[in-house]
């Protein structure tokens, strides 16, 4: 198990967004969280990546506690521990958030070299391997504005992979892509899973979830409505809300 989320609660002002969300992710597993917009999908991802602090709950990443519920509130890891946890987490943003003033190569090696002290040579070697794997070798010296949406996404994946994460999160990976690129990103995600990385992807793209996910969680109004294997989920959709969403 590389990620465990237990009894997660989060409110913005007085508006509860997450109400007791729990799930787990195994190494090499592809888990899709699906649900309508506003259901709390992005908040889950932001909590898991410590971009938003949860109110209550426990998040464990590869044996380390990002935050731990002590019965009244959630206690977060200290700074040095947090850095170790960050290393285990990769996040590909919906709009990628590449650094526009840095070349593709710089985007990838910046954090390993300047945050984690990886020797330059090793960082560049790893980056070159990633670029090769993602078919971007000729783009190493390009800048983000020169890339297409699909290429930017692959750079974002390379950047997130540069620290050898155990968990890779992808926020709406198909939303910025042309339809014909969806199979490509599906294959890339499968490749990452084969390396033993746990993949957590959030999407409202049912067809894509069906194509790539091993397991699906449906979330609505801050609660998990149903979580099951893909076959069960798509074969036997009982819940009314899920059916309604699927029909949309």
């Amino acid at each position: 198990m590389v990620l465990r989320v237990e009894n997660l609660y989060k409110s913005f002002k007085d508006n509860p967004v997450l109400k007791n969300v729990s799930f787990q992710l195994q190494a090499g597993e592809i888990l899709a969280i699906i649900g309508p917009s506003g259901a709390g999908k992005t908040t889950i991802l932001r909590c898991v990546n410590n971009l938003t602090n949860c109110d209550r709950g426990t998040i464990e990443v590869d044996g380390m506690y990002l935050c731990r519920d002590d019965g009244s509130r959630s206690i977060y890891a200290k700074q040095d521990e947090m850095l170790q946890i960050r290393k285990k987490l990769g996040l590909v943003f919906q709009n990628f958030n590449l650094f526009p003033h840095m070349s593709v190569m710089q985007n990838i090696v910046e954090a390993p070299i300047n945050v984690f002290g990886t020797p330059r040579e090793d960082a560049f070697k790893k980056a070159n391997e990633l670029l090769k794997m993602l078919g971007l070798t000729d783009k190493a010296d390009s800048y983000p504005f020169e890339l297409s949406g699909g290429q930017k996404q692959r750079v974002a994946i390379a950047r997130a992979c540069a620290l050898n994460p155990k968990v890779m999160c992808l926020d709406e990976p198909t939303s910025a892509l042309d339809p014909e690129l969806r199979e490509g990103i599906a294959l890339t995600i499968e490749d990452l899973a084969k390396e033993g990385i746990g993949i957590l992807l959030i999407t409202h793209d049912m067809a894509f979830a069906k194509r790539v996910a091993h397991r699906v969680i449906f979330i609505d109004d801050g609660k998990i409505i149903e979580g099951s294997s893909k076959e069960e989920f798509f074969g036997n959709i009982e819940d009314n809300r899920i059916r309604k969403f699927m029909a949309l």
Partner: protein
Amino acid sequence: MISYFYRLMPAMISGLNTTLKVFSLTLILSIPLGVLVSLGRLSKIKPLNSAVQLYIWVMRGTPLLLQIVFIFFGLPIVGITFDRFTAVMIAFVLNYAAYFGEIFRGGIESIDKGQYDAAKVLGFTPFNTFIRIILPQVIKIVMPSIANEVITLIKDTALVYVVGLGELLRAGKIASNRDASLMPLVLVGIIYLALTALLEAIFKKFEGRFSYYH
């Protein structure tokens, strides 16, 4: 005429010397201070934020000439005395840092919040995020506005005459009165234009250095 200009040169060069000293010192000190001002202005620490807002209001809301006069002639009344040049530099640096601060604030606010998120998930500290990710992008954005201020600054240096410092325009006026001729002022105008042209060329080059990305 050329020989007349030639005879004016020693006085002009001495004036130009003061002008360039005030200009360059103000730039060197007020730009970094401006970055700090912008951070104070954006700070969530309420007292700091309010103090910086008040400072910006006063500095932008009163004439620079008045600020120079106040610091050189006014502060001695309460026992704080500066020599002419120091008084002038304090006024210029404080005044320009306020303007630069507001320019930097605009630049910082225009950076997408996603850049901070991306830096955070990659483990950057807030300091490193600012230095390595945010500031380089801000500099590109604010460059044209900074260039504008810098060109204003070269002409604002003429205000130092008020405390009796001999800068370029003053040298021209003295010669103009003495010789009952407008030609010294024409020469002063030409020198200002030459300086401005030089600054514009420098900024053009500088902006070019940042044009490698959008």
